[in-house]
């Protein structure tokens, strides 16, 4: 944990990226903060764009504003098995090509509606044992994991839990028979 915070701080000071130098200079460098994953900055940017499509900004901040992409990568890096880390990384790496072949454009160039559509369809891809099938399975695994962690990282963020739906450490005395009709709360408009 300390190592990652140190790396983040260093990244801030150096104005962006900390790279592990790679021998192949034609390739983009790997982000060192997620040491179990081979993730580049442009992949992280893509993940951030995916998370922001899943929960966009509106009257209330969205996933991009809350840097949920970092949370997703921390969880995948620290809490996934090696095998699932591999599937996630493979899916993330294969996603741009899937977008291009399906929509004919890069993810960034799509409209908000098109972005939603491609994530929904990608999340439903079914895998099999063929090369293509493995890739499809990984894409859907990546997108479903990204959605799950986007929701978790967003809802359990400081912003949501202090400014939108305040979390209480003291929940109050138990009431075991509350009429649901007595609980009408003003609707939060995202």
């Amino acid at each position, binding site marked *: *944990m300390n190592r990652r915070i140190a790396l983040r701080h260093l990244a801030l000071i150096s104005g962006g990226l900390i790279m592990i130098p790679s021998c192949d200079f034609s390739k983009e460098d790997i982000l060192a903060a997620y040491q179990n994953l081979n993730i580049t900055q442009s992949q992280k940017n893509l993940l951030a764009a995916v998370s922001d*499509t*899943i*929960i*966009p900004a*509106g009257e*209330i901040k*969205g996933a991009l504003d809350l840097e949920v992409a970092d949370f997703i990568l*921390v*969880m995948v890096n*620290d*809490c*996934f*098995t090696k095998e699932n880390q591999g599937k996630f990384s493979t899916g993330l790496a294969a996603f741009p090509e899937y977008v291009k072949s399906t929509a004919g454009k890069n993810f960034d160039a799509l409209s*908000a509606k098109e972005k*939603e559509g491609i*994530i*929904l369809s990608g999340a439903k891809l079914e895998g099999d044992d063929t090369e293509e099938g493995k890739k499809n399975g990984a894409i859907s695994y990546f997108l479903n994991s990204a*959605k799950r962690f986007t*929701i*978790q*990282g*967003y*809802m*359990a*963020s*400081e912003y949501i*839990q202090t400014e*939108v*739906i305040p*979390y209480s*450490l*003291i*929940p*109050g*005395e*138990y*009431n*075991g*028979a*509350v*009429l*649901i*009709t007595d*609980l009408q*709360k003003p*609707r*939060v*408009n*995202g």
Partner: protein
Amino acid sequence: MANLNLKSKQDRTYQAIVIGSGISGSWAAKELCDLGVKTLMIERGRNVEHGKDYPTTNMLPYEFEHRGQIPQAIQDENPVISRCYAFREDAMHFFVKDTEHPYVQEKPFDWIRGYQVGGKSLLWARQVQRWSDFDFEGPARDGFAVDWPIRYKDIEKWYSHVEKFAGVSGFRDGIDTLPDGEFLPGYELNVVEKYFAEQLKKQYGGDRHMISARCAHIHGNAEQFAAQGRTLCQNRQLCQRGCPFGGYFSSNSSTIPWALKTGNLTLRPDAVVHSIIYDEEKGKATGVRIVDRLTKETEEFYADVIFLNAAAINTNLVLLNSTSTRFPNGLGNDSGLLGKYVAFHNYRAGVSAQYEGHSEYTTSGGRPTSGYFPRFRNVYKQETDFLRGYAAGFSASRGARSNSDGIGMELKNNLLNPDQYGLWSVGSHMMGETIPKESNYVALDPSLKDEWGIPQLKISVDYDDNDEKMVKDYIEQMSEMFTKAGFINIQTRDDHRAPGLDIHEMGGVRMGRDPKTSMLNANHQLHAVPNVYVTDGASMTSTSTQNPSLTYMAFAARAAHHAVAESKK
């Protein structure tokens, strides 16, 4: 130098030594100190001071890097502790990791430990149901283990004594199998739990009960706990982090600070007990040899009376490793029974379901307890093809959830406005009595040692046919009760978990009437070394079905008063 040693021996001499600072050890120390006995309490782990050393207690969900989850690398390295329900990011620092104190599993056994001042009293589930004579008379009636040398009347006033100080919330339910105690106001069951309790009364002619579980929380009235610096439970349900309010009983919030305030307690953390010293000439135990956890240096402390409360399995280890010419097989082990007849609670099975009724209701706030089924099997007479029976936990819950389908603004608005109530969920888990057997034992490994040069324990404990039958019966009976109550979508599980994960391991140093068939007498003294008392789970002759901690507290208090009375003779 010789003089220095003499002086230092004097400095290291007390009237009593208590080994272990968990629930039973802290109760022994508190009672001894209240009675004016200069007491040394030895704890193998680090100090944890109430209020000061609860680093996560007020942390908010988003302050946990993994939102509570244990990272995969830690789980991979520590598979045993990772199976414990409470081993989460917020309380990880209060559990012993597999790598920190290895042991040999001749058969799979999940040994869950908390090595710090306060031990597992910081982590326990705080359920405190009394035993009755249906429990104490079990072995004699059903012909297993040996007869308990005590009965309910011997322990009744000590239950009251510890309940008043620890703080126990509950209702006076008037049930034969679960005597009422000194209760603070109880926690009401919720509307579906009450419905289920009524259904049971109707369907089973008053033979089966489901009540609000008695729990060691201060509820309704905190006045009598002000002197301990404790106040009302705030329903935070974050107990495993350590409670800044002292809302539930822990050694850290209650008995240890109380004992320290008497001026009679010396606390020695970071002291791993190697053995109890036996003086062949005097024919009694004279002290305790420890290894400093950090420096690995050996040190000795001396006292007239020694309380061994290291938690069931480690209490066995200390006695097994306390060898002398007189006791080559472990202190007080003339019978050869030490380490044998270990038992536990069978938590393997659970039944869950849904309920369509009471759909206009939900719940609000928090509570630290839920429902409890006292044992109803084989109580008044033997009625099944297995011995004894099981208690069970029960709870019903319903809360607003978000619909997390979809994507974009629709998803966002759904998440921010949780309004999906669904049906009530109900669930139960069994807590079965297991029969102590000679073949379920702990012993010292002949070659492997731990970091402090102490032999590693090997543990050989398993289920038997009686347990299998009981699992089956619990699943059948609970399913039937759920069906009769109109619950739907009933799901049953038998997770085949290893023994130990119940964290109710008991025995190995059992009480009894006869030194040939037991280790301890009716006062918790080793038959052969009466100035050594064992009042933790190791002393249990049988396990019954109730969560055992309250009984250990009562045992410790009772034995401490006995020791003081003996010293005045």
